[in-house]
């Protein structure tokens, strides 16, 4: 097993190679593509499992400019091992699930090639031993996310969503790059161990600047307020992709980044405060939005944003092992919920909750899987979400009571939106027009695997904490009872909210819509961004195009061209075609040259 972790870089190399091979032969591989792509995640699981007990690292000189040397290396420790396991297991489940879900799609092989590339990039991100490799992986997962959101690129909404996701996360990535530059300037290296070891000798202002910049990168990637707007749109991609990239792994990379560079945040209370405030706002705000969505995937998208907010809040109070614990359990139950919703969409042909209803009898396995995922998300014991969310709320409540209370409110809303979506989709009268059917085994087996994880992972809390080198918090019974009570009350409320079913125009009682309708559109944040940023930028671009470019630069360029043409035409007029004139001019020229020469040698 030692050999495996010494060769940890293979978890990047193998899927990368597979991605290239599949990508070059999109017409060749056919149905075999999925099984080939499965190798990468399985390798990640193997390496992750073998690295739980001990780490490994290595690096190569990548490039040198003068005295500055960039190294590229891997560093596997407990945190990487846990992330590798999460990435590997979820990716494997998603790939198998996709065999059924993507069956017959025109881009079948392309799909698995990109998934394989994603596996490589995400594994590279988590095993990177320096910020260079981490950033490369970070950007590559972003690129894969772009490619997969826009997978059905003929659909304008998908292409638009892909661009939006790319641009919005780019804002965070730019900040992250600045953070890298600050660290490089201050320490002269981007190796994680060297940077984290020298945090104590850096000026507090430098540490805070770097930490806040890295945090902004994480905020963009993890869709935290105010850069959360891309994730709901990202649901235009295939549903298994949402499960893998936009629920379990890539969006959690922000949490991983903060955990990875924890000494920076430990030394900077300001950065931690930013994380706490943004996380709390996001957790509560996104939960209220999720409550009013009618698209089953958007419910899950806002739920993901909200749960990531929980993790950021935990990071903000310094409980990073707890945040990672919640990351792990969330990866399991949210991937499960997304796969289930994929199964629902596959089986019923719609993703509008108002057109579902009564699917319980038609799709029993899917319904059970959804309910397991939903209970885990709501934090009902003894499922996974209960333990991790309880630890998150407990640590936040202890350090910052106001944020803890907000998270408790978010827990209440979590119960509500889960119950509402469950009732709308699986209970009540059948409203759909299409004939719903249960999905094939390739789709139900991955759901079963994740369901087992969603049930059992909660008990792995102490082990995860041990691997991360932290103490596991003992459960506080009073808090647990309170949280479960709130979740239950929320669930009851959500259940009642869904009573109207598809009768209401937005699946929400009109009386409540009047009071709280703003949440339906995400509090108009999209419109605000459009008005405040996108439209002024577009206007600026148009101004640059018409005034600066066409009127300015083009005019100057055309002016010079016109000048050259004018001079040419002027001299062209001397070319009369008359041989006599030419010879006369020739003679005149010779005489002038003669005069000049004589004057020069005078």
């Amino acid at each position: 097993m030692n050999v495996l972790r010494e060769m940890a870089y293979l978890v990047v190399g193998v899927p990368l190679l597979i991605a290239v091979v599949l990508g070059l032969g999109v017409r060749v591989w056919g149905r075999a593509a999925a099984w080939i792509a499965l190798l990468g995640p399985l390798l990640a699981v193997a390496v992750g499992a073998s690295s739980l007990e001990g780490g490994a690292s290595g690096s190569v000189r990548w490039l040198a400019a003068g005295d500055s040397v960039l190294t590229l290396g891997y560093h596997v420790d407990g945190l990487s091992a846990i992330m590798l396991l999460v990435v590997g297991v979820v990716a494997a489940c998603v790939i198998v699930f996709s065999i059924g879900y993507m069956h017959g799609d025109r881009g079948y092989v392309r799909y698995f090639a990109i998934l394989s590339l994603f596996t490589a990039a995400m594994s590279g991100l988590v095993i990177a031993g320096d910020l260079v490799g981490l950033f490369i992986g970070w950007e590559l997962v972003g690129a894969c996310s772009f490619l997969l959101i826009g997978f059905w690129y003929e659909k304008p909404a998908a292409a638009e969503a892909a661009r939006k996701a790319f641009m919005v996360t780019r804002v965070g990535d730019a900040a992250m790059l600045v953070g890298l530059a600050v660290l490089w300037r201050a320490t002269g290296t981007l190796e994680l161990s060297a940077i984290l070891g020298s945090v104590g000798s850096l000026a507090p202002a430098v540490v805070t600047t770097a930490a806040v910049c890295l945090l902004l990168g994480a905020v963009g990637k993890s869709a935290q307020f105010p850069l959360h707007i891309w994730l709901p749109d990202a649901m235009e991609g295939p549903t298994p992709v949402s499960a893998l990239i936009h629920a379990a792994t890539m969006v959690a990379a922000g949490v991983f980044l903060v955990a990875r560079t924890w000494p920076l945040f430990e030394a900077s209370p300001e950065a931690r405060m930013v994380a706490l405030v943004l996380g709390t706002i996001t957790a509560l705000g996104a939960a209220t939005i999720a409550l009013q969505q009618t698209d089953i995937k958007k419910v899950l998208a806002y739920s993901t944003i909200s749960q990531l907010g929980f993790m950021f809040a935990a990071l903000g109070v310094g409980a990073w092992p707890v945040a990672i614990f919640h990351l792990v359990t969330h990866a399991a139950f949210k991937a499960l919920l997304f796969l289930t919703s994929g199964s629902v969409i596959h089986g019923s042909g719609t993703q509008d909750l108002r057109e579902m209803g009564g699917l319980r009898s038609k799709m029993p396995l899917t319904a059970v899987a959804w309910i397991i995922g939903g209970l885990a998300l709501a934090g009902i014991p003894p499922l996974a979400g209960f333990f991790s969310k309880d630890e998150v709320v407990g640590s936040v409540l202890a350090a910052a009571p106001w944020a803890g209370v907000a998270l408790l409110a978010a827990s209440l809303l979590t119960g509500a939106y889960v119950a509402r979506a469950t009732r709308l989709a699986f209970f009540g009268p059948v409203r759909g027009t299409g004939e719903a059917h249960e999905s094939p085994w390739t789709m139900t087996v991955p759901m079963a695997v994740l369901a087992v994880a969603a049930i059992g992972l909660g008990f792995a809390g102490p082990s995860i904490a041990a691997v991360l080198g932290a103490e596991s918090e003992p459960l506080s019974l009073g808090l647990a009872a309170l949280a479960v009570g709130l979740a239950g009350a929320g669930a009851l409320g959500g259940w009642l909210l869904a009573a109207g079913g598809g009768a209401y125009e937005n699946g929400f009682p009109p009386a409540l819509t009047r009071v709280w309708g703003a949440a339906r559109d995400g509090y108009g944040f999209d419109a605000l961004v459009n008005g405040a940023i996108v439209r002024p930028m577009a206007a600026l671009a148009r101004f640059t195009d018409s005034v600066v470019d066409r009127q300015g630069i083009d005019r100057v360029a055309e002016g010079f061209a016109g000048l050259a043409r004018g001079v040419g035409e002027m001299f062209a007029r001397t070319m009369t075609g008359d041989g006599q004139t030419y010879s006369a001019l020739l003679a005149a020229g010779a005489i002038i040259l003669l005069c000049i020469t004589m004057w020069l040698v005078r």
Partner: protein
Amino acid sequence: MTSLALACVLMSVGLYGLLTRRDIIAVLASIEVMLGGAQLLLAAYSASVTLASAAQGVTLIVLATIAAEAAVGLALLVALVHRGRTRTDQIEEVRG
């Protein structure tokens, strides 16, 4: 000194003929006269300056070149005559 003066005279006569004559054969002849002037100058130079005997060789080579030039010039001239152009002011195609 005499040969220098003679070279100048040859050059001037040739140039005068080139500029004033319209007859294409006369123009060609004028050019040859100018070339003769230039050649004479070169040869005279080599005679008056020590260590410039190479110029005499150059003169001989250029004489051969002039013969070739005359052949090309006459060929062009024949082509022009075939198109009915015997005077330089009838040549108007060479223009921008």
